[in-house]
């Protein structure tokens, strides 16, 4: 287990380093300098040079990258228009736009995304897997057909369509639900939940569809397994057979998918965040790209990659916990 962990962590760090280099290179492949964006319209070449210098963009790319890496491990300082700013390790850079260490931006936006994703995940794992399992147990029934039909419908809907419609119907027209908003859970758990209900429902329903179909297929397959027959032959009640024997086995592959999904969602759910005006990391990333705000682009890309890589490791370890046959090595 430990060996596995060390091996995977090494691999993960290599991946992150590679991603950071690629991001850097891609960013410098863009013909437009962020200085032009920042400087706006009324901009002399001198002023551009000035801005570039203050952003450190006049340095060669290798120096900029080494500075970045140094910042991550040792921290660094920035000259923000005459104000010297400390950026403590791990310093992922200094945001051009909000003029703060990007870790501050992340600290602000990540909890929002985290809240959206975790809530949505609870919805789509319970609703999706629940529906899928029930449909599998009642394969061919009316319930099965309705549930799977609905899931095809939801799966082919987009967040912005469903989200927009729900906003219009549940918020703007009827006021059944409050406007989506983010309140830290530590501040007011009730406001936290009610403000995020709509994004949870929207993201939850759309993903439920996928999970319903997956878990249905998985469950149907598992129900034909020999060990399920054995369980029934033992005289176990259907409920025990389905839950203890079939579900447990059927759910295992879903753990991988859910884990990887979680990893990629934590990097930001841009459309959901935009549709519901929530300032999560996804929006921050999209804005950063539009602003050519390299440090924030870099940080959001790395955070997204970090979550994906980490979730992959966690999923693999979880697999070993769920399935005793799996040996980590």
């Amino acid at each position, binding site marked *: 287990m430990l060996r596995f962990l060390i091996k995977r962590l090494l691999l993960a760090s290599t991946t992150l380093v590679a991603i950071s280099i690629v991001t850097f290179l891609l960013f410098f492949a863009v013909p437009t300098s962020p200085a032009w*964006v920042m*400087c*706006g319209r009324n901009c002399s070449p001198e002023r551009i040079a000035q801005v570039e210098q203050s952003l450190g963009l006049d340095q060669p790319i290798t120096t900029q990258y080494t500075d970045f890496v140094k910042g991550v491990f040792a921290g660094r300082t920035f000259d923000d228009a*005459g*104000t010297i700013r400390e950026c403590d390790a791990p310093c992922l850079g200094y945001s051009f736009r909000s003029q703060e260490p990007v870790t501050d931006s992340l600290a*602000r936006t990540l909890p929002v995304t985290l809240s959206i994703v975790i809530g949505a995940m609870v919805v789509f794992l319970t609703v999706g897997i629940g529906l899928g399992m029930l449909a599998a147990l009642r394969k061919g029934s009316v319930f099965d057909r309705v549930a799977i039909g609905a899931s095809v419908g939801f799966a082919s809907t987009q967040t912005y369509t469903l989200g927009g419609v729900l906003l219009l119907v549940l*918020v703007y027209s009827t006021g059944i639900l409050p406007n989506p908003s983010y309140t830290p859970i530590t501040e007011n758990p009730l406001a936290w939940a009610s403000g995020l209900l709509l994004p949870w429902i929207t993201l939850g329903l759309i993903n439920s569809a996928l999970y319903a179909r997956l878990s249905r297929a998985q469950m149907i397959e598992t129900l034909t397994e020999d060990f399920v027959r054995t369980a029934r032959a033992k005289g176990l009640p259907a409920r025990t057979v389905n839950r203890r024997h079939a579900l447990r086995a059927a759910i295992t592959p879903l753990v991988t998918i859910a884990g990887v999904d979680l990893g990629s969602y934590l990097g930001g759910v841009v459309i959901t965040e935009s549709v519901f*005006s929530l*300032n999560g990391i996804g929006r921050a990333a999209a804005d950063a790209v539009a602003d050519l*705000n390299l440090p924030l682009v870099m940080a959001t890309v790395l955070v997204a990659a970090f979550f994906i890589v980490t979730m992959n490791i966690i999923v693999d370890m979880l697999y070993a916990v769920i399935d005793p046959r799996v040996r980590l090595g």
Partner: protein
Amino acid sequence: MRRRFGALSAGVLTVALVASGCSETTNSNSGGDQKAKVQTGTIATDPAESQGPAKAVQGATKGGVVKLLHAAEFEHLDPQKIYVSDALSMATQFARTLTGYKEDGTGNLKLVGDLATNAGEDVNGDCKVWKYTLKDGLKFEDGTPITAQDVAYGISRSFDPDWGDGPTYLQQWLAGSVEYNTTYKGPFVSPNDPIPGVKVEGEKVLTFTFPAPQCETPYAVAMPTSAPVPKAKDTKGDYDRKPVSSGPYMIKEHAYDQFIEFVRNPNWDAKTDPIRNAYPEGIRVEFGIDAENGANRVAADAEADKTAFIWANVPAAVLPKTRAPEFKERVKNGPSQYVEYTYINMDRVKDLKVRQALNWAVDRDAILKIRGGVDTFGSTLLSPTIGGYQNYNAYDGGPTGNPEEAKKLLGGQQITLTYAFPNIPARQQMAAKTKEVYAKAGINIVLAPLDPNSYYKAVGTKGNQYDLIRGGWGADWPSASTVFPALFDGRTIRDSGNQNLAYMNEAEVNSEIDRIKVMKVDQAAGEWAKLDKMIMQKYAPVIPQYYINNYEIHGSKIGGTFLSDSYGHMTLNTMFVKP
């Protein structure tokens, strides 16, 4: 030109693109209470007009919190850095300036003394020396008195070489040079040097001495460049997050990108303020709510949003429902300072007949329809909000243009022109329509979509290969002096970073600009209007497209507000919460 806050996602991007003024609408009959008002902006001469308190708004009550639903965090809050319309509108509530605009919503825009006792004393009558005396009883949010020194310190900050984001009029005039910070570089770099041309006498008196006549000084000091900053509390870079208030509201909490909570500033004295009523108890700004969500929420008028409003044009998707009669009171629709142009690159299109033909053939009706019909037909260089504005159409082909007249002028020549525009959906649609319109006059348009981030870099470079250039302009104050010198003075043309996108350099026009620039404001207004017409008739360097309108909406419990002619958004000065 100040930048217009638009419906785009984020700060810096907004800046570059908003200059391309993007607000989309779909319908052609406009609702709301739009009035065909003609600017009557003047500078107050009677000092009584500069005295507080502000005239009460009929039916207004004190209390409540108004809520601005805003797409993105303000680019800046540091008064010396602010230049985008939304932050300018917001700054009126926490950064008082030497002068300010007093409005009543009926087109009467009067520049009065805000911190100062009057709009400015032209000491020698030659517009070179201006004296401002501060009122009594002015205090910062912490209770310390506001002195002339604080105003001078604020102005000095705007000289900092790293801070180029704010307006530069005052600095350039004081330094007597476009490159205003070659010698004096602000209080951080040059702490011991005097600010050029700024003299402080005692606690109250501030004098500006300019090398050249600057008759529009009262307007220039209405910009937040002249907002006082207490040196002891100057946190430099961090000041941008939490400036010290001199106005009726101060920042209680600012969560970047999320919200700002403004509360009443207990040290603001209504008796000193002729402009602001400050009826609400507080102002809450929520960020990250794009124009569509914001407009939807305000239109829905749920209990929590009854006191909400937006500072962005209602987008196309929401526009139709806001045209219903019940929205009449809640929609504010009117002209802005912005005019949309197609510049004709005179370095490349040298034939006047071609430029005139382009003006004859333009189908403004078709373009307005693409824009959604919120804007107004316009054929002049100046916007109707500019003092002295006169309406005319030098090439009157009716609303849809006259391609036959254009063909006649061209005399059968086949012409192909390239048209440069920022590659964003709104502009793509307009470009396609432009191509279609000119095809009728036998003019072939080749479209040149450009990276929106570097658009102005590309078209602002002299010798570029574009014949027609999409652009727009908004005056910084209701005077043409912030339009013509910037856009049509050929002597300002540089290798890059040009604003004179027609690359027009005509001696006659240059000298007219020089002549009018030194005139007193009220005389100059008429002369600028004449120059407007002359430029279009004799040179046709641009094809004016339309006047960009504002179309904003507020919740049902908000009263007293109107579209400000100074900054284009619904004003907070007179806004109140209905009980």
